């Protein structure tokens, strides 16, 4: 693989974490414009841990995820009773506050005669872990995808588990769910916590991939994009948001023909797609249809005795 492909594929992997984070909240019926905040928290926390405290990368990423989850739960509790647009705007306000706080925050220590650490609007440079440990770009890409594969695997398990059913049920109708005896508030905060951790894992990996972060990376654009990916790719399965990211970053990235017209074409296509498929390419109906196809094929064989002799 050439360098360029590796970097594009790595980016797709990392953005997928934020997209999955927004998707998880969508499952529980909440629209968040603010998942970029946890991406930022994960990036800064993990970056500080390796570059300033000398922690190993896995520990740093885990610590970033914990920080992201803690902040998400802290945000989740006061915003619990907000619905729809009010929740969306509250998360937006929170994320922008986080971004501005990072713009104001300076925390640097001296390492080898050079100041290292977050430096306000100049960002946080010199997160040099991959260079200090001689990790090749390709290996780092594999690391991203290993973590992503585990995440996706657990999403698949989640979709089949009772927890997944509860999440979707709350998303469909929270009142009905609570009438069924489900502790809606607790599950919502729980979902928010996992979503925060997911975005933070993405952020931690991002900081080490690019070796620098700066506050404006984490503005509203990232949040709205990650929400859009789920809608484009489909809300029926966790592969949906991934498909959305691949379509946006991958496909358009590789098709250079459009150069200056890229967003004109892409924006129009997305708008048209949403008219035809308002819940995305891989929506619930399609996913269930495919599932039924498989089950029918299996039961069809046993019932009629057809199939290979």
């Amino acid at each position, binding site marked *: 693989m050439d360098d360029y492909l590796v970097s594009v594929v790595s980016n797709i992997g990392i953005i997928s974490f934020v997209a999955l984070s927004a998707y998880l909240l969508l499952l529980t019926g909440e629209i968040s414009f603010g998942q970029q905040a946890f991406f930022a928290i994960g990036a800064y926390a993990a970056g500080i841990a390796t570059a300033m405290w000398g922690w190993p990368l896995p520990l740093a990423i885990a610590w970033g995820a914990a920080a992201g989850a803690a902040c998400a739960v802290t945000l989740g509790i006061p915003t619990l009773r907000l619905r729809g*647009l*009010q929740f969306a705007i509250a998360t937006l306000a929170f994320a922008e506050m986080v971004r501005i706080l990072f713009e104001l925050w300076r925390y640097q220590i001296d390492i080898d005669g050079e100041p290292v650490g977050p430096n306000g609007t100049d960002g946080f440079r010199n997160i040099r872990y991959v260079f200090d440990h001689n990790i090749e770009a390709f290996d780092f890409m594999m690391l991203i995808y290993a973590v992503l594969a585990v995440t996706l695997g657990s999403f698949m398990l989640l979709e089949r588990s009772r927890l997944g059913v509860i999440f979707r049920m709350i998303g469909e109708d929270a009142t009905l769910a609570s009438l069924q005896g489900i502790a809606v508030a607790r599950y919502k905060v729980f979902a928010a916590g996992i979503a925060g951790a997911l975005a933070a894992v993405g952020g931690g990996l991002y900081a080490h991939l690019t070796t620098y972060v700066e506050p404006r990376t984490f503005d509203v654009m990232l949040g709205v994009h990650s929400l859009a990916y789920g809608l484009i790719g489909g809300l029926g399965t966790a592969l949906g948001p991934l498909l959305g990211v691949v379509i946006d970053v991958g496909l358009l990235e590789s098709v250079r023909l459009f150069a200056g017209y890229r967003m004109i074409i892409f924006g129009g296509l997305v708008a048209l797609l949403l008219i035809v498929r308002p819940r995305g390419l891989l929506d619930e109906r399609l996913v269930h249809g495919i599932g039924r196809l498989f089950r029918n094929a299996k039961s069809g064989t046993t019932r009629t005795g057809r199939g290979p002799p």
Partner: protein
Amino acid sequence: MIDFIQNTIDGVMIGASYGLLALGFTVIFGVMRRLNLSYGPTIMIGAYFGTVLYLHFGAGLLAVAAAVVVGAVISGIYVERLCFAPMKAGAGIASMVSSFAIWMQLEQAAVLVLPRHTYPFPPLVTGPALEIGPLLVRPDHLIMLTGALLLAAVVQLALYRTRFGLGLRAVIANPIAANLVGVDVGRLVVLAFAAASAIGGVAGFLVLAVDQQVTPMFGMWATLKGLIAMMIGGLGSIPGALLGGLLLGVVEVHSHWLFGPQVRDLFAYFVLFAFLVARPGGLLGRTIDVELSHRA
């Protein structure tokens, strides 16, 4: 003390334009129960119409103002036709994401026409600030405030004294019932979009003429300021939208003066967040059902 009064006055002036943006948002949101993220970018497209006329044809101030409004209305109707009209009931979130995609499209279109980062915009008036005792008032700020109040009055009159307004209020109160009593909801929605874009066009023109420059970022700026002011003021309330805008303006100017630009934005978002958590209905709003979650 003088500084405090001066800042409050400045805040009210700036807040007037936020109030106008929130007003446009409120009209669209009230009618559709859906969020149009492209609202700011359509105003930006209008502003680019005006700027092209100003730069290449030497258009005068009034012609530029007209072009901004017309451009905003045209692109507003484009957004309505593409992102809102074809979406079935229950697809509110698809509409929102779709309007975001069109935002990206409009922004790139603007950059294609005028590729530089900033362009000049004709000033409203040139001349020194008016001195009223120890206070200074910029004449263009005064025009902005007057314009905002006039427009708000017109909107209020149109809503309560015309058939169009009656229909609009009926749809805002209950779209199904409005349809049952013979209101042509589809047509009304297009008209409401056009009206909201026109309001936004006027607001955009006033803001840009005060700043005397335009960038493609104006779209995002307008969407954010309008949204924040609307949420502070309360969903679906016209006086609330204006009040929210004024409050946002005053908070911004004071915190800017006290702590600088970054803390100003921090404060603005904090006020928004605090309002949402403590009083989700905003200053004057009621809790109206938001058709954002797909089951609403």
